[in-house]
């Protein structure tokens, strides 16, 4: 049963991967180049800041590059796989949901799989490795590495779940295209280390909206700025937060479906 389901997902995935390159080659290549330019911009920002004599207390330039590497990894995960969750409102708004509900795979999972961008993910992983090499990977703890990757993945899934909840607002409000802008604007929480926040803000962005886990926390784990024990504690907190958000997600989804009306069934 599970294998059959996996096969279906794999088939869908194959379609999504090749259609981008097949039909929009120039645009896909342009997209990859642009992502590299953005990363260079990130590095340039920190070079200029350091050059001006500013310091991120407790973080050397190499350690900041490790943060940037994690920031890039999270960003690529988000834009290649889970960022699309913020566009799910269109399926609801356009009245196509009931068609998708008849398919043998959960329509949300199907939507994510069909919109995956493998090229962006590969590009992100390459950038991640290169940035770690620039940062001098000897400062990276091997022990914390696997844990940090796990944290990034869970944080990305968590954000995807939050995006879905935003999208469900379409059941009540209708057109929700500003959600795309909000989703894009959330990337600012991934751009700078959130150690700069005040204590209250840190609590909010750790326990309620888990933005601290996007790239700041994984970088702290891998740089051994926090102990492995605290790392595992943080990871557990993240899992609990994810569980709560998934619960809210399912609750709103069901309430939304009760309200839904469409003409394509």
């Amino acid at each position, binding site marked *: 049963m599970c294998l059959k389901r996996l096969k279906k997902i794999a088939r869908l995935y194959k379609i999504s991967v090749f259609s981008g390159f097949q039909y*929009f080659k120039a*645009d896909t290549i342009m997209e990859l180049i642009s992502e590299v330019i953005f990363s260079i911009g990130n590095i340039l920002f920190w070079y*200029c800041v350091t050059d001006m004599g500013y310091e991120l207390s407790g973080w050397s330039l190499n350690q900041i590059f490790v943060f940037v590497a994690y920031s890039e990894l999270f960003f690529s995960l988000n834009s290649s796989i889970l960022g699309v969750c913020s566009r799910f409102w269109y399926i609801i708004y356009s009245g196509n949901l009931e068609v998708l509900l008849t398919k043998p795979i959960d329509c949300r999972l199907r939507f994510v799989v069909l919109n995956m961008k493998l090229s962006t993910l590969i590009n992100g992983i390459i950038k991640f490795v290169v940035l770690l090499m620039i940062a001098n990977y000897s400062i990276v703890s091997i022990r914390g590495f696997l844990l940090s990757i796990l944290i990034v993945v869970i944080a990305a899934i968590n954000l995807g779940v939050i995006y879905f909840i935003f999208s469900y607002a379409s059941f009540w409000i209708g057109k929700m295209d500003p959600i795309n*802008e909000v989703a894009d604007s959330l990337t600012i929480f991934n751009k*700078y280390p959130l150690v*700069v926040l005040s204590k209250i803000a840190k609590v909010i962005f750790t326990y309620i909206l888990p933005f601290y886990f996007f790239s700041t926390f994984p970088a702290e784990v891998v740089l051994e700025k926090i102990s492995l024990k605290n790392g595992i504690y943080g990871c557990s907190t993240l899992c609990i937060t994810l569980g709560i958000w998934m619960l809210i997600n399912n609750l709103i989804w069901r309430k939304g479906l009760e309200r839904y009306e469409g003409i394509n069934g």
Partner: protein
Amino acid sequence: MRDMKELMVKYKALTTIYIKQFYKYPIPLFIKLIYVPVEAFIYIFLWNYLGKSSSVDINYMIIYYILIGLIKSAYPFRHISINIQRDVMEGSISNVLVRPYPYILPEIERYTAWIFLYSFIFIPAIIFVIIVRNVSVYYAILFVLSFAIGNMIQFLVWYNVGLIALKIERIRGVLLGVSALMSFTSGSLVPLFLLPQWMEQVTYLFPFRYYMYFPLQTMLGEISMSDYMVSLALSFVWCVILWGLSAVQLRSGMSKLQANCA
């Protein structure tokens, strides 16, 4: 003259329709009220934190980034390109082309309607900055002028980007590419005076600095009158270049266009 008058009547009518349409969906406006302050909040924390280690004026950096954030997200420019891409991909561009006005006109109207509505947020925010920063009336007026021309450039840039869809259909990568280039050369990533000299020279090759860095410098009173006039003249030159480029793109794109929605 009569044609012009007729065109203005159509222009006015369509702009009013767009204003009504956007007014019916005010959520984008409210959402802006959330995420623009959130961005400002991050910058304030960041520069306050960084400022602990340096004697450089952090207030300047904070106001710089808040202003950049405001100018950058004042109006939804990227929508211009996205709309054109949608017109091309769905084939609805053929419906627009048979109407008795140029293709650029509905885009200008939609843009004017956005400006009208978004100004309810942007103008009070700018007035707040003017009061906090104690900007003189003289520089405030110069800012308005530079910002207005900057917006014209911004519109034409994204209109041109949208027209690329006539050649390659999907322009998601192009949008991202232009945004990346813009962050480098407009001063939104790093203030341009902090860039290495050769890199700062390169920014003159692109129009982006004229709709972000130039109005910002004016607002902060960091530009001499002669430099202001030069930048203003160059802004006009960019407008002409971009206008010409859009005409060329539209003509060559139309020869390739295939649509079945007419």
